[in-house]
């Protein structure tokens, strides 16, 4: 490539974007007039640019998948709730009486916040449960070996977790494991099918929460802790199957 062609070629992008100073622009135009190969390159650059820009609104038009907005809004609510949390230090500075009042208020606020955070957590995990089963599980997903799933979680994400295996006699089948995102980070999401119903098991390491049972969006979540891990099970089934599956998992992860 000739030096003048190379210099022109380097400037075809800002030339097409009309971002060159006048003197350089004139120089590029002089060269293009005299050089058909560079003129062809300039036409291709302009052609690609025009195609993308004229169609940009169509290209950008992608419907958000169900659940994504809900999960992102939950993240936003958690963030604003954290930022609006009252500062107890300011209360203490006003004296002993005020300090007691603040402490009592803080205690109450904490219990409300915890309950609310259970609700937020359950809502996030319910949305993830629906998404993962819709995208990743097939009706005929084969049962998986628990040791393979544990190995996968260790190799892919560095998690050393105990995955309860399938229990055919109880109608429990292990069908997959993924990484799940929630407000505070990531955690293992293990997927089961219990007598044909989709059941998710989430494991939050280093977190202890009091046991709770919540219902929302037509799904039921059971939360409990063992050691330094909190477990959450989510299912659309509120009957005996979920209870049995939860008992089975509790027993296996001990």
């Amino acid at each position, binding site marked *: 490539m000739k030096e003048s062609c190379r210099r022109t070629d380097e400037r*075809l992008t800002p030339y097409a974007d009309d971002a060159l100073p006048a003197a350089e622009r004139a120089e590029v135009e002089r060269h293009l007039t005299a050089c058909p190969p560079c003129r062809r390159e300039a036409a291709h650059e302009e*052609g*690609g640019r025009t195609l993308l820009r004229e169609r940009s609104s169509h*290209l*950008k038009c992608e419907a*958000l998948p169900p659940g994504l907005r809900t999960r992102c*809004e939950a*993240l936003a609510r958690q*963030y604003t709730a954290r930022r609006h949390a009252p500062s107890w230090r300011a209360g203490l500075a006003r004296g002993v009486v005020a300090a007691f009042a603040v402490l009592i208020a803080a205690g109450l606020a904490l219990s409300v916040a915890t309950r609310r955070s259970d609700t937020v957590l359950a809502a996030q995990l319910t949305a993830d449960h629906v998404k993962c089963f819709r995208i990743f599980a097939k009706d005929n997903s084969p049962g998986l070996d628990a040791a393979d799933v544990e190995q996968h979680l260790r190799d892919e994400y560095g998690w050393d977790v105990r995955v309860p295996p399938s229990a055919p006699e109880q109608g429990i089948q292990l069908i997959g494991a993924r990484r799940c995102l929630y407000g505070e980070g990531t955690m293992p999401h293990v997927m089961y099918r219990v007598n044909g119903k989709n059941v998710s098991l989430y494991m939050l390491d280093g977190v202890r929460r009091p046991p709770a049972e919540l219902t929302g969006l037509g799904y039921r979540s059971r939360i409990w802790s063992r050691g330094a891990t909190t477990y959450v099970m989510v299912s659309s089934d509120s009957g005996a199957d979920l209870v049995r599956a939860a008992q089975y998992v509790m027993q296996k992860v001990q």
Partner: protein
Amino acid sequence: MLGRRQPPDPDAFAAEVLAFLDPLYATALRLTRNRADAQDLVQDTLVKAFRFADRFERGTNLKAWLYTILHNTWRNRRRDAARDTVEVDSERVEEASSTSSGPAEIDTPEQILLRDTLDADLQAALDDLPEAFRQAVWLRDVEEFTYAEIAQMLGVPIGTVMSRISRGRRLLYERLSASHGSARVGAGRR
């Protein structure tokens, strides 16, 4: 107090971030070419945006800041998933395409191509571009960021950004012209 960053108002910040959800998802989808990965990428981006909200300087470009997080997150994820292969691959393609002259003379006028190219074809051609070029043309021609903003998002010099935009635009045009030409011949239209 001079020079200290003002933390954003939490409610306004959260609302502004959520307002960019649609373009973030569209960009994540073009980047990952996979709906499940795009969802994870957007959610991961928001987790980080809220966690590091204090690092955002009020009055600066929030969209560019979010896109920087999105691209960094994607880059780290790719690096974790397959060390080196991505970079090597992109660089090789970059070199190869800069020496190739593309298809020979193409007589199809730009206007005909523009009129006859379907959105789906354009999207498919865009998805077929090497990742480095796809990112660059998307950020410049679809999202209309400046060269400097893109350079910061991708962590590369401005010269590299321009060269990737240039290669991306020309490859896209040449591939669409070629397929458009062969489709016309194959279908025997007109």
